[in-house]
């Protein structure tokens, strides 16, 4: 729990303490589920981003 509060303070996130208390267990569980998955990614694996240089900019 304290870890998330320290990260929020260091990153200057403007998140009220009661909200932090609410989301901390969710973050804890997500981190515990995710980090082991990331340990065995082969080094040459590219991320599944999409970027094509020279395609022209998207209009909005």
């Amino acid at each position, binding site marked *: 729990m304290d870890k*998330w509060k320290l*990260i*929020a303070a260091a*990153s200057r*996130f*403007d*998140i009220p303490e009661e*909200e*932090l208390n*609410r*989301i901390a267990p*969710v*973050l804890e569980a*997500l981190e515990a*589920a*995710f*980090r082991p*998955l*990331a340990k065995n*990614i*082969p080094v040459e*694996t*590219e*991320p*599944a*981003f*999409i*970027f*094509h240089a020279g*395609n*022209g900019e*998207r*209009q*909005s």
Partner: protein
Amino acid sequence: MTLLEAAAALRAKRVSSSELVSASLARIAALDERLNSFITVTGDSARREAERADRELAGGIDRGPLHGIPIALKDVFCTKGVRTTCGSKIFADHVPARDAAVVEKLTAAGAVLIGKTNMHELAYGITSNNPHWGAVRNPWDLERIPGGSSGGSAAAVAAGMVFAAMGSDTGGSIRIPASYCGCVGLKPTFGRVSRFGVLPLDFTLDHMGPLARSVRDAAAVLNAIAGFDPRDESSSRAPVPDFMPPEPASIAGIRIGLPENHYFDAVDEAVGRAVRRAAELAETLGARAVPVRVPDIAAINTVGRIILLAEATAAMTPYLDDRAKFGPDVLALLDQGRFVTATDYVNAQRLRRLMRQEFDAIWEQADCLFTPTTPIAAPRIGETTVEIDGQTEDVRLASTRLVRALNVLGLPAISLPCGFDPRGLPLGLQIVGPAFQEARLLRIAAAIEDALGIRPCPPEEGLAQR
């Protein structure tokens, strides 16, 4: 009446587009005070578009099955001159200067836009209990959620206000409301339908697709909206076939993968039974059910949550300082996204590539997968947890755990009604296929729909009396 039946009636001159639009607007006027499925109704422009469609059809100009048909758009699709709120206070006064690509294509196909549908705030949730525009209610039981985030689109289709509606799906947001409202919801392959001009929730997980009253209606909409768009960098140049299933739709020889792991774990008994019955029915039509083991879906879901948290918070960064403009559940998710490190995000996108390769091996054993869409029927409005098999589970995580992985993998998936629970609430069958095989997926779904004979209509007296 389905979209295709209305299209046939138009061509047989048994009805006009103006009459269809008037009937649609009258139904919205009669029911939407209770359902709250629309944020904006564009009645005047719809009547004008309908008159034009009638003139064109009378003059021999036929733009196809959507010509003159009233449809709705989830309020994430930008519409030139028509407010596009994304179900948010932030965009309450946002009037786009141009149409989304999907809107351009639907307009070119002659569809008549009847309005913009209510949704979960920012498309970031599954209840459609919107703090700014009010809760959308399920036409089958007004005390229940329609699902989300495309809840207004599903409710409007299920209640017969429009023949079809567009939705967006980032972690199940088309298929969940289709399942809870008893209609058809199609999430095409990532890249099949342009994302250009859609207010983004998540740049690499957002998919656009239709909600409709039948599988063939969904195919008719997909025929109109699919195709390459250079304005969307993720848009695919894959050939676009005719998606309309033949009548009858044969599935002889099709191998239906029935997952032995994950998809039937912790699902309501009625849901599991209805989906297995659909597979048995498929076997009577000449298909073959084969047991398959799927990769770790919970891990794929975890990767999807990391990507979604990071990208959604990135998209909303300009607005995060004004916390009062967000509802509490969306704000909690946006806050969580601030804690996802860049390393975790990049690794999630790397894992996504590996998981996709691993998942593709399934298609050597099966041509499609049959799974439940949601493990439960529609929960009550305000419920935050549900009990399944004696276990208490968060409503959002329960509703998304069978659908989210397909967004990470980018694979096409369709939800169609396959039965009812003991309370009379509709249940959804999800059919999943290989990338860019929507035509096969729709053919299988149409065969099942025809054989089941289920075109659920919510009880009219329930809608009218409350």
